[in-house]
């Protein structure tokens, strides 16, 4: 192979002479002259390359991550259903009282006191008193615990067997779901968005003003509201208000500076470059979770900077291009997440 020697074949280009910008002709000449000495002319020091061979570490890391994720999901499923065959056999009952402690009332068409084994119907509204607690069996896919002070409504399924086949609306207080099912089967609606289960365990809390927080303890949840579809894995959280788009998910241990800049970027449609700079300055490789979720930011310059930062952490798959991200293509974002970032999160 004939290989040219570097830096010996480039003539100096002066596009400001051949293709000047209107209104800057004289200024362009001065600028070009002033910067002429700054042009690159160095050579690569071959010693610095060392003997490190180009590797395919990424491939094996991805494979390892996928195996770990599969093992975690299986472990979660086994923990949930080990020795619980009687619950599994009553799959036809969608929401059944598994345990009740203290005062729990049911409002609605079938208003009554709750007992263990009672079946709940769509439209039933559960009110858990302070100091009380209620655990429901959710079909054959898991459990839902309502903490003291919670108010929750049972909703009709969207589809008997697929997406949204188990739906509840948390109106107030906290509920902890522990579910092992196909993605999107179980959903917790709140005044500020819907938490769509992607497998395992998470806590949703709703304040009186509808302000909602979601904290994922294992597995992952998709939180969806006002056009945002956010991926929240274990160890991450987000918050959401009824009158604003949800915040971008972040790790529980994210730095204060990172969170401050993220909060401002979330609140602004235009995206202040200083906030973006601070966010990226504070971001660690693991914060690719937040950067990936923020790829839906309305400001294209923000999306572009995030794409570049993420590409440095993990190269996007073939076909996931800057143009696709700038165009807001959700499928491209999700491919990048599923094929590349999943092992990291």
């Amino acid at each position, binding site marked *: 192979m004939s290989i040219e020697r570097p830096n010996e074949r480039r003539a*100096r280009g002066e596009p400001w002479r051949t293709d000047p910008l209107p209104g800057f002709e004289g200024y362009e000449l001065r600028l070009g002259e002033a910067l002429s000495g700054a042009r*690159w002319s160095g050579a690569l020091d071959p010693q610095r390359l060392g003997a490190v061979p180009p590797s395919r570490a990424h491939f094996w890391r991805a494979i390892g991550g996928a195996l770990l994720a599969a093992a975690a999901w299986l472990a979660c499923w086994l923990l949930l259903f080990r020795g619980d065959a009687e619950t599994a056999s009553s799959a036809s009952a969608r929401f059944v009282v598994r345990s009740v402690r203290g005062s729990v009332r049911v409002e609605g068409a079938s208003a009554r006191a709750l007992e263990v084994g009672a079946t709940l119907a769509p439209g039933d509204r559960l009110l858990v008193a302070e100091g009380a607690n209620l655990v429901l069996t959710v079909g054959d896919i898991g459990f839902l615990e309502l903490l003291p002070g919670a108010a929750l409504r049972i909703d009709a399924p969207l589809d008997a067997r697929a997406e949204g086949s188990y739906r509840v609306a948390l109106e107030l207080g906290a509920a902890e779901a522990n579910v092992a099912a196909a993605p999107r089967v179980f959903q917790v609606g709140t005044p500020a968005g819907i938490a769509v289960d992607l497998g395992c365990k998470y806590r949703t809390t709703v304040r009186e003003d509808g302000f909602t927080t979601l904290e994922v303890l294992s597995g992952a949840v998709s939180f969806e509201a006002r056009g945002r579809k956010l991926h929240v894995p274990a160890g991450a959280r987000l918050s959401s208000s009824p009158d604003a788009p949800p915040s971008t998910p972040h790790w529980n241990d994210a730095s204060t500076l990172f969170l401050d800049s993220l909060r401002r970027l979330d609140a602004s449609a235009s995206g202040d470059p200083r906030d973006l700079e601070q966010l990226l300055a504070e971001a660690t490789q693991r914060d690719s979770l937040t950067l990936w979720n923020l790829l839906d930011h309305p400001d294209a310059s923000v999306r572009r900077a995030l794409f570049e930062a993420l590409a440095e952490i993990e190269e996007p798959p073939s076909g996931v291009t800057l143009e696709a991200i700038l165009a807001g293509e959700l499928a491209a974002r999700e491919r990048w997440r599923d094929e590349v970032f999943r092992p990291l999160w």
Partner: protein
Amino acid sequence: MRFRSEHGLPGTKSASEEAEGPSDAALLEAARRGDARAFTALYGRHAPLVHALALGWVDRHAAEDVVQEVFVQAWRKLGELRGAERFRAWIAAIARNRARSARRSDERRGRRLAQEIAVDGLAAGREAACDAARLEQEELLAELRALPEAYRETIALRYVEGLSAEEIAAVTELTPGSVRVNLCRGLKLLRERWSGEAHR
């Protein structure tokens, strides 16, 4: 011009350009097999791009380090690059992040050494003033780094490395029209800070 052809739009290479040497894909394939000469050739083609991007973030000395570090990192991670056609975008992404990190390091170091620099500043200033052109260049590059990112990148690519709007568009994945808009806006801001008249 080699840089032009390598950084031009896909599928626009002329016959004479093709005759200048192996393609990026061929060099990449050889480099992946451990051929350091092939990688050095890739370096020769793309180092000016990396340098211009780095100048948008850090001073000249740090930018030279960034160029070396970017290519060392790229060499080590060549196996992770999927698609030879993405080499330029890939190396640019590494460059931006490496330069950003270098700038953060400089800022931290700058805070720590601020007092020392203040003491030495007078002597250094007198020495630098002996080379008026160099001083002007350093001032100008400092003003360039103070511009918004989108502007300083396009300006460095045009006036330091001499790329046309079309070539910058191919590098930054913007349209040529957007590049011209960024250039005009960036020049307008830069002209408020550095006229160039005082040093003529």
